[in-house]
């Protein structure tokens, strides 16, 4: 599926360029070069974590380039039959495409496209192996729902890589508020009082203004005492999301047999019969895990080709991974410095 119109002559011009020796691309890059990627985190003040990413943006007038905005927002859910909460919390991803990014698409086609993107992101990021451990609040009662929303503002090619990088950056930036559980104890007089403590922060709390609840002193079924939670420090942003270094990135291998190339522009994408998306993450020992894989387009691929592509894809992913991590750490230091100014 291509989102840009291209004439046959343009297609064959691009393909012939890729296949010539040495290969040449419209903007003079070599096959495995990326355009410059601009990234900043903590762009949305109301979100728990956010990032803005642009691939191939013209530094002068800000034109051109794929641009994606990602934001993560936490929401409290009750774990109950009928309501949405799940033990240990859950993640919901959604990708929205701005109509301005795809002016040639009808609204139905646009919906299809954003559904495809949402599915790929959701399937990859909600895999149990990636699930952060600190999304639970009260076991059996409350949990966090992490909404990860992305908006594709401009698409000039390689949108999947941009989406996954932006998602990783936003989740890296996400802070989960610290919580402390609150429990009610039946007093002899029949009214109930509150006692803080027993939560994650483990700090003992004072008296609070909480709706009172009458608990029967004879009820022995209730094993879990904690019924609600509070934020020990409203102004504290909280702790980082657990396992934030594990979020995968995506490498799109654009295949014009027998060569493949990275970071296609939208014209190049329209001239490419087959694209392979590899979602890869690296653990602490730097060994690669493939978290997902997709093919887009109607080209053909043999198994032997695929093994070669996987090997190459891992190599590219490692490079992207390392430079993205460096950038995120730099950004983090910059933000802390900015905060300490005040």
């Amino acid at each position, binding site marked *: 599926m291509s989102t840009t*119109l*291209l*004439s*046959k*002559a*343009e297609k*064959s*011009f*691009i393909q*012939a*360029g890729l296949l*010539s020796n*040495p290969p*040449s*691309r*419209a*903007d*003079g*890059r*070599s096959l*495995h*070069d*990326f355009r*410059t*990627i*601009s*990234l*900043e985190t903590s762009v949305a003040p109301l979100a728990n974590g956010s990032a*803005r990413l*642009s691939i191939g943006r*013209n*530094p*002068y*007038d800000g*034109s051109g380039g794929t641009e994606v905005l990602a934001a993560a927002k936490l929401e409290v859910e009750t774990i109950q039959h009928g309501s949405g909460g799940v033990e240990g919390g859950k993640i919901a991803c959604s990708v929205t495409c701005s109509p301005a990014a795809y002016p*040639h698409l009808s609204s139905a086609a646009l919906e299809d496209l954003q559904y495809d993107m949402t599915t790929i992101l959701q399937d990859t990021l909600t895999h149990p192996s990636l699930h952060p451990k600190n999304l639970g609040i009260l076991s059996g009662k409350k949990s966090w729902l992490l909404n990860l929303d992305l908006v594709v503002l401009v698409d000039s090619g390689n949108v999947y890589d941009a989406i996954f990088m932006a998602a990783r950056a936003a989740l890296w930036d996400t802070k989960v508020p610290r919580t402390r559980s609150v429990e009610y104890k039946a007093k002899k007089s029949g009214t109930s009082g509150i006692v803080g403590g027993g939560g994650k922060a483990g700090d003992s709390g004072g008296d609070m203004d909480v709706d009172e609840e009458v608990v029967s002193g004879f009820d022995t079924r209730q094993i879990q005492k904690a019924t609600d939670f509070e934020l020990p420090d409203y102004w504290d942003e909280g702790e980082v999301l657990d396992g934030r270094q594990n979020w995968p990135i995506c490498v799109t291998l654009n295949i014009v047999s027998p060569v493949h190339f990275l970071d296609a522009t939208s*014209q190049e994408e329209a001239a490419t019969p087959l694209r392979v998306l590899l979602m890869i993450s690296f653990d602490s020992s730097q060994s690669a895990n493939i978290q997902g894989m997709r093919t887009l387009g109607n080209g053909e691929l043999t198994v032997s080709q695929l093994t070669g592509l996987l090997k190459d894809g891992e190599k*590219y992913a490692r*490079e*992207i991974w390392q*430079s*993205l991590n*460096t*950038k995120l750490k730099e*950004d983090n230091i910059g933000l802390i410095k900015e905060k300490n100014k005040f």
Partner: protein
Amino acid sequence: MISFASFPSRYEDTTYEKTRHHASVKEDFMDIDDAESFEAQGSKLTCPGESLTSSQAYMRGHGTYVENEEVIASVAGTIERVNKLVSVRAIRSRYNPEVGDLVVGRITEVQPRRWKVDAHSRQDAVLMLSSVNLPGGVQRRKLESDELQMRGFFEEGDLLVAEVQAFFSDGAMSLHTRSLKYGKLRNGQLVVVPPILVRRLKSHFLTLPCGVDLILGLNGYIWVSKHVKENEQEGEEGFDAEAVYSNVNDDIDDSTRAAISRVTHIIRILTSRFIPLSDTLLLEAYEWSVEHGSDVKDLLHQDFGDALVVSITSGQ
């Protein structure tokens, strides 16, 4: 292979170079008695929301609105006045067609007896079957068989160069390709620039000595392609429909390909700095880039682009 950068600070370009007046100081652009001074101010840029003149003395045109008996600019652009009509021509806008303009367009739709063409204008342009060159003689009545094979001439996505012939009542433009210079495009790539940066030139078909042909569409679509020698152009003797409507590229050698890529880059560099394109400027820029940069890839660097712009604009 991959490099990350930061976005520029969002607050860096908020300094205004223009002097700000107190609200009591009236700055009236129009002066009925002094039409010449208005002409001198003709190149002055307006800000959206800027008051231009009194609505009692003037009529509002495009790009303006009336509030509190004042004509106020609604876009950033240059002021134009025809008698009592004041309008503002926006700097960044879609292409405003005029009859006789040379444009490059892309077919978006094939309809009965006509093609819809995207020409960077507000509405899609129309190319009638009767205004293209049909195979078998230039002067020929169109037949039903022609209607049935319209996709054989142009199909969706095809690029073409054409001239603005006339306007329909709704303002859409009608194109024609009834010349051997016009028709389908191949052997190259398209660059899209803001239409205002393409100046009206004596000829919009340029040939650079590096073996590259350029078609500067007034609508901001620029076609950069391999040079085709005059005597090898299709349809020299008679009209060869097969060659004119062909979708197959010629063989393009590496040096030509590199030159096409280089010219494309130069155009991008110039337009990102908002420099209007002209044949001499492009040629100068090409020579400079060959002298100073060995590789097309060098052009991607920002410093290199800066140096290029400085050197060619200082020479003027």
